[in-house]
């Protein structure tokens, strides 16, 4: 029983894309699609400009719309709080793809089922970090068990402000942005 969560430190991310490719290689994601995407937000006017790199991927919400709308039980929340997918059961109705507020799900163009980030559950089983966290050159990605006070994520969350996009929807995502000081949401 763990409560896994992930965070991206916006002050450390330089948008190098290592996480995107690592995920693809590790999880055999078809070339056309990504389980994890990084994009850039520009704010302000010259010369007072701000730029941040935002990340979209499955947030493993505690109240997961994708699980709520799944008719077959293909999407489910496991004992570690991970939103997981039983590909056999998935019929490809795409209700979860539409329901996800973070556009984290997509239909696997080769296999037909609804894909998404798994927090690398197969690596967690071997006591390894998710591959995007493992490879991140700047250490912007942090992962761990929220119930364990000594975990990387709890340590990282301690001295930084937390920002949860679309928090008002109330899905209780387990993916955060970290910053010393928050800028306005674009």
């Amino acid at each position, binding site marked *: 029983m763990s409560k896994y969560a992930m965070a991206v430190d916006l002050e450390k991310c330089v*948008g190098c894309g290592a996480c995107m490719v690592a995920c693809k290689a590790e999880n055999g994601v078809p070339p056309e699609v990504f389980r994890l995407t990084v994009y*850039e937000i520009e704010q302000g006017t010259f010369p007072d400009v701000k730029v941040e790199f935002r990340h979209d991927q499955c947030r493993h919400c505690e109240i997961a719309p994708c699980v709520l709308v*799944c008719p077959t039980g293909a999407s489910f929340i496991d004992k570690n709080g991970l939103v997981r997918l039983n590909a056999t059961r*998935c019929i490809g109705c795409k209700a979860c793809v539409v*329901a996800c507020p973070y556009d984290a799900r997509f239909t696997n163009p080769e296999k037909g*089922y609804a894909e998404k980030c798994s927090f690398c559950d197969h690596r967690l089983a071997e006591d390894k970090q998710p591959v995007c966290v493992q490879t991140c050159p700047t250490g912007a990605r942090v992962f761990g068990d929220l119930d364990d006070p000594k975990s990387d994520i709890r340590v990282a969350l301690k001295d930084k402000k937390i920002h949860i996009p679309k928090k008002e929807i109330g899905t209780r995502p387990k993916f955060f942005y970290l910053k010393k000081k928050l800028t306005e949401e674009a």
Partner: protein
Amino acid sequence: MEIGIANELGHVWEWPLGLHFVLSALVAGLSIIAGIAHLTDRKGLAKAAVFFAFPILIVDLLSLILDLSKMWSVYWLYLNFNITSAISWGTLSLTLSAVCLFGFIIDYFKIFPIPKRILNLLAWLLIGSSVVVGTYTGAMFASCLQAVPLWCSMLLAPLFFASAVAMGAALLELFKFGENISGWSLSLGAFTACLMLILYITELYSSPKATQDALEYLLSHYGAIWWATVSLGFIIPAILAVIWIVLRQKSPGIIGKSIALLSLFGGISLRFVLLFAGQGHF
């Protein structure tokens, strides 16, 4: 910057699902009329509704399957029930409707006689399942929480249901055989649908920023179709319905035909516009 692609989701739900929504509405409307007509002893009307509803239901189920990207796994719909999933409810109710309608067809073709008590029970079941069939497509939209701002309204469920009744009645009015559809049911359907739509639009306008953006998208990309749908498909039929009730005509006549035609157009158009505009990018 250059790095920063997102998966090109585009329209996740495509036209087969829009077709499914339209056909489900017709099935729901027809079935509920069939059930009520049977129980109120208007056998001719009931028969007409059943004969329309059953084949539409078959095509309807096919259109649902057509939209699945892993359609050979469709049997899982029957092996699992998720109480929070609109599709689960939809599958269940559509199947139940199919069984009930099939019961009536067996009886009508006298394949083997079904006792009246059982037929009455089937009629009640049909009414019940039709309410679910009529509302579930709306609920399917609404259950997307705030992921899709345009759909983020539970009012869509009663709106879709009222419109479904209007569409069922309209179909029977346009292609009448056997007994006439009562003008009351036609008018009531059209009127309620219009009321619900007005409520829905009012809600949209008083919603948070995301919905306002979505609304702007809807009006800029689908503006002409949207307002045509609202005015021709809902407001005018409602006005005609009031006129008809005031005139107290027995048979709907030309006004009835107009209500029927416009309601059908409104119902179909509303579903497609909401489906596509909802998934637009804003």
